[in-house]
């Protein structure tokens, strides 16, 4: 690879940021854990063992057992799947909606822009957690419903971002050139401008995963997320709350997992942001 190509510069800048690399490593490890869950989890996450109820962390159960004698470590390993899936799918949905709205608003301007901007403002004013709670309670808390509802209520940031990018990019010469060559609006939007506005969207998507993971776990914690016996970090924490006085390990470990995951996505996102923003390239030498 050319040592001075944009990608290689960006990559080297990213590698220099140790925290961001650490975040990336944690995220990669999580993906690995989720994919390999059936092979690495020491027990079946749903195996009930009445003789070993609420056992402290020890050699046979590294992170202890819950109120039905299920192995907490195994449940957390399987829970990583839920958290990962919800994070990626919900953010995927939100990003697609955000890009579409943002692109149309920014490119066409005028009434299209005014209506979409108004809609974004309205969505930003609704306490979305109220809405998510209501909808999930009504349509049922399957993992798909949760992904979709989180996605449908968290696209506004991306839309604003993309709109701003489009507003500035559509005035550039390469767009005029494309138009002069006879490219249609849709082609200009999706082939020419969108490619150039992807960097900030990528950053906001990585940061958005962190938010979605937090949201999913709080829904699970309230008892309206993915339902037991499917293990999620949030619903292990609910058990932790119910057994707060006798089983601290049910509260401490899943929470720690959520914290580390969210932290990792945030560090990764900020690291990517810093390394793809050319304006920051010089400032580092200062």
């Amino acid at each position, binding site marked *: 690879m050319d040592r001075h190509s944009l990608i290689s510069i960006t990559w080297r800048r990213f590698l220099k940021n140790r925290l961001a690399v650490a975040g990336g490593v944690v995220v990669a490890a999580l993906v690995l854990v989720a994919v390999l869950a059936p092979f690495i989890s020491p027990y079946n996450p749903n195996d009930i063992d009445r003789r070993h109820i609420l056992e402290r962390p020890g050699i046979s159960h590294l992170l202890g057992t819950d109120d039905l004698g299920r192995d907490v470590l195994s449940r957390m390993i399987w829970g990583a799947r839920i958290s990962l899936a919800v994070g990626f799918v919900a953010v995927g949905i939100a990003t697609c909606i955000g890009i579409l709205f943002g692109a149309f608003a920014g490119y066409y301007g005028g009434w299209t822009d005014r209506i979409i901007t*108004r*809609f974004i*403002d*309205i*969505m*930003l*004013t*609704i*306490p*979305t*957690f*109220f*809405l998510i*709670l*209501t*909808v999930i*309670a*009504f*349509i049922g808390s399957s993992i798909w419903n949760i992904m979709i509802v989180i996605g449908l209520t968290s696209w506004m940031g991306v839309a604003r971002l993309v709109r701003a990018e489009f507003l500035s990019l559509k005035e550039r010469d390469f767009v005029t050139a494309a138009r002069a060559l006879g490219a249609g609006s849709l082609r200009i939007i999706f082939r020419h401008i969108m490619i150039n506005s992807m960097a900030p969207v990528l950053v906001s998507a990585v940061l958005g995963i*962190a938010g979605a993971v*937090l949201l999913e*776990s*709080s829904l699970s*914690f*309230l008892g309206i997320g993915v339902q037991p016996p499917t293990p999620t970090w949030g619903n292990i*924490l609910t058990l*932790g*709350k119910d057994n*707060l*006085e006798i089983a*601290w390990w049910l*509260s*401490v470990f*899943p*929470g720690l997992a*959520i*914290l*580390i995951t*969210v*932290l990792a996505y*945030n*560090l990764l996102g900020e690291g990517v942001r810093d390394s793809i923003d050319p304006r920051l390239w010089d400032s580092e030498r200062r």
Partner: protein
Amino acid sequence: MLQYLLKRLAEMIPTLIGITLISFTIIHLAPGKPTDILTDFNPKITPEARERLEKYYGLDKPLIVQYGLWLKRIVKLDFGESFSTDRRPVLDKIWDRKQPLVDRRLFVTFMINVISMVVILLISIPIGITSATHRNSLYDKVMTTTVFVGFAMPSFWFALLLMLLFGISLGWLPISGLKSMNYSSLSAPGQALDRISHLVLPVFIASFGSLAGNSRYMRSSMLEVIRQDYITVARAKGLPEKVVVYRHALRNALLPLITLVGLSIPGLIGGSVILESIFGIPGMGQLLFMSVMTRDYPMIMCILTIGAVLTLVGNLLADIGYMIVDPRIRTHS
């Protein structure tokens, strides 16, 4: 200024209509009706009886008509009656005049949010400023790390840990409800103290999440402002650093923070569901949770509307704050 305010107030009306229309549609389009809960467990119910029930609740009309009727009543501040068995007016459940002010649900939620907001501003602004002025010092690094961890901390988990530590292990603070069992037998100062001690953990948890983001924002915005020419001029004039920072830089540095505060209001209000359910606080969030579970449409709509109004008013206050801090905006409008 007054003209601007009136314009903003007028603008709130279409927004509010938009919000309520979206909420109304979502609630009513969701599969399953509140009458199902009443009828599903009763095998003897006939289809006719079910229809009568739907008619009674006005659920048989087309959606847009239902919304129109709802809107017409709202203008008179009539949010309807709760679908639950007590059939009480919805507003009465949120704002029970028979109870002392401090026990009314809306007031409880409102108070916790306002106190949290004040705590957030009182702590995050000084942290942000000092982090910026002592950039890259040990203090700044510790603060940056804390902020990053705080940003990622799931609030409900943090609440559990604090309950475990202060409530159970140390026994310093109560972990549930708004007042103790023996509240009525306490003296007046004792009652006040009792209430405050019940609020310490919830307010701390409610503020903690935003604390991280806001102080971070304050720091970067202060760093931005301090680089500008007029600050160099102020320093060159020989002004003491304190005056430069707190009189000249602070005003401009506060601007982005005000926007952020305005934007964080929906999150705070929405978060009250989690907060109130962890700490067993009888507020609006807890009521919403219960109403959602029983599909109490009028109750849900009422709380969603109040949540939206609180957010809009909060945003308006943020804009007014913006005008107070930034004279440029005042002269433009």
